[in-house]
């Protein structure tokens, strides 16, 4: 099987984020591999391992695909150190400020040209938090959409079944290759890169492509930010120490504020 994993480099989710000129300031924060994409990388590796492995010349390959600045090689390298075979990084100055529509169009072109059987994504990035790119890739490619998976079962003969878990309930869904899968947090326990994996990742190939090489005309964002204002910090209110009547004080506060 040819498996692709889409990953994104994002500002560390523990860092304070700011807007500059209507765009997220990505320069001045620590950047990491999107937390939720680690589950996608892990799931891809597990699927490969369950069906003959992804060693060189083996039955399967796992290719990491990412779009972002050159600096995103760090996040891509992390996915490679977990055990993916190789990577494609789409970098182009015209992609700065790309929205989800432009991003999905670039990713879909690269995926479509690569002849993959499965594409695996995280459910969302921790910066934009839209949860739309996997569905967009599926719509653009005309591939089956198997998203919000808490369990993925692959029949290498050409079929994937998932358990989809959302606030609307639990669905069992299946589709024939090729498919776009997104996996929820906690579908698995992502492995830590081993020392051997980190060393091996340094030699793995990250192929960089610009938009001309991808074969997509740059598309401007179809939504614009008019203004972005930091919200005033919340002021701390009343603080009491429980000396036996803390619960009562809490109830009184609720009553005062007409919350009960």
């Amino acid at each position, binding site marked *: 099987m040819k498996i692709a994993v889409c990953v994104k480099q994002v500002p560390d989710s523990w860092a304070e984020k700011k807007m500059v000129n209507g765009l997220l300031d990505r320069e001045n924060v620590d950047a990491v591999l999107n937390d939720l994409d680690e589950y996608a990388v892990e799931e891809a590796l597990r699927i490969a391992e369950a069906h003959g492995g992804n060693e060189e010349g083996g039955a399967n390959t796992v290719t990491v695909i990412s779009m972002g600045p050159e600096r995103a090689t760090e996040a891509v390298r992390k996915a490679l150190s977990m055990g993916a075979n190789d990577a494609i990084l789409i970098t182009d100055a015209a992609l700065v400020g790309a929205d989800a529509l432009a991003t999905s169009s670039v990713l879909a072109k690269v995926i479509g040209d690569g002849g993959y059987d499965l594409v695996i994504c995280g459910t969302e990035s921790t910066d934009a*938090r*839209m949860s739309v790119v996997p569905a967009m890739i599926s719509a*653009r490619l005309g591939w089956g959409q198997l998203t919000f998976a808490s369990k993925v079962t692959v029949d290498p003969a050409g079929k994937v079944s998932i358990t989809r878990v959302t606030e609307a309930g*639990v669905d069992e869904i299946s589709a024939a290759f090729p498919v776009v899968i997104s996996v929820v947090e906690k579908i698995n326990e992502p492995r830590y890169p081993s020392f051997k994996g980190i060393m091996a990742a340094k030699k793995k190939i990250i192929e960089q492509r610009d938009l001309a090489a991808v074969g997509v005309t740059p598309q401007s964002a179809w939504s614009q930010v*008019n203004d*972005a204002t930091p919200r005033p910090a919340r002021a*701390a209110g*009343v603080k009491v120490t429980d000396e036996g009547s803390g*619960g*009562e004080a809490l109830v009184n506060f609720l009553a005062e504020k007409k919350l009960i």
Partner: protein
Amino acid sequence: MSNVFVLADFSGEKATKTTAELATAGARIGAVTAVVLAESGKGAALAATVNQGPIANLLVVESADFAKHGVPAVADALANLIKSKSPAAVLIASHAFGKEVAARVAVLTESGIITDAVDVSADVTATQLVFGGSTTVHSKVSHGTPIITVRPNSIEADLSACSPAIESASVEIGDAARLSAISSSKPPVKGGRPELTEANIVVSGGRGTNGDFAAVESFADSLGAAVGASRAATDAGWYPHSHQVGQTGKTVSPQLYVACGISGAIQHRAGMQTSKSIIVVNKDPEAPIFDIADFGVIGDLFNVLPQATAGISAKKS
């Protein structure tokens, strides 16, 4: 006057309050048409439950494909309706299903998309709270039909009764929308508590519970609240991951948020700091969550919560 589409939102076989919230926002822009996408034979029954909010028309489409193929079929039908009726904007509930429908509709109709709006104005400007609610952003779609998903519980719904005109339509659903097959669907296990993102009150537990959520749950039940958990608690396996509030979990914005035994790392605050009122119960007086609390109790949640639960029950009786 222009026409605005609202994708009617259902829980089970009943329209949710979110449908009225979407209609309330939509009515600022134009006359609201609520689109009801129903299983074959269920259209009339579902449409009858869409009876609150400023809704002028109902557009009802029945197809067996909606239940069989889910998001892609719903998106295909909605996109085709948009192409034939050219609404000024389309408002959809911002949950997993709604966001994915919006995503596909944006691709199919070549339209810009904005997700997780907390408000939409008459000129179709969307307000979003980004970066964990630390920044307010106003934005507009500049291409095609604005496709906007609106967070449940963020717009005060006009719940006045309505009796919209009902129109039935039939829509072609393409083969590309029928590639994945749903073999079984189970509704969520509710356990009698409200849904986390729709609840007016949320009570959450963290590391300080030490794995025992009984006090948190009893207190939540006395308030009719949903129960949330910090990442520390879900990572430890103490509470289901689906209840995680925070940057990698759910974002909630209830009238009241009660954080119990949660230190308040930025990861957690990002998911709850836009709550109207925040109450904190924590043993550690230095816990950063106290900085954003309207009312804080420094104390052991296992003492404070049962006393508060009893106090609320006493007030009710």
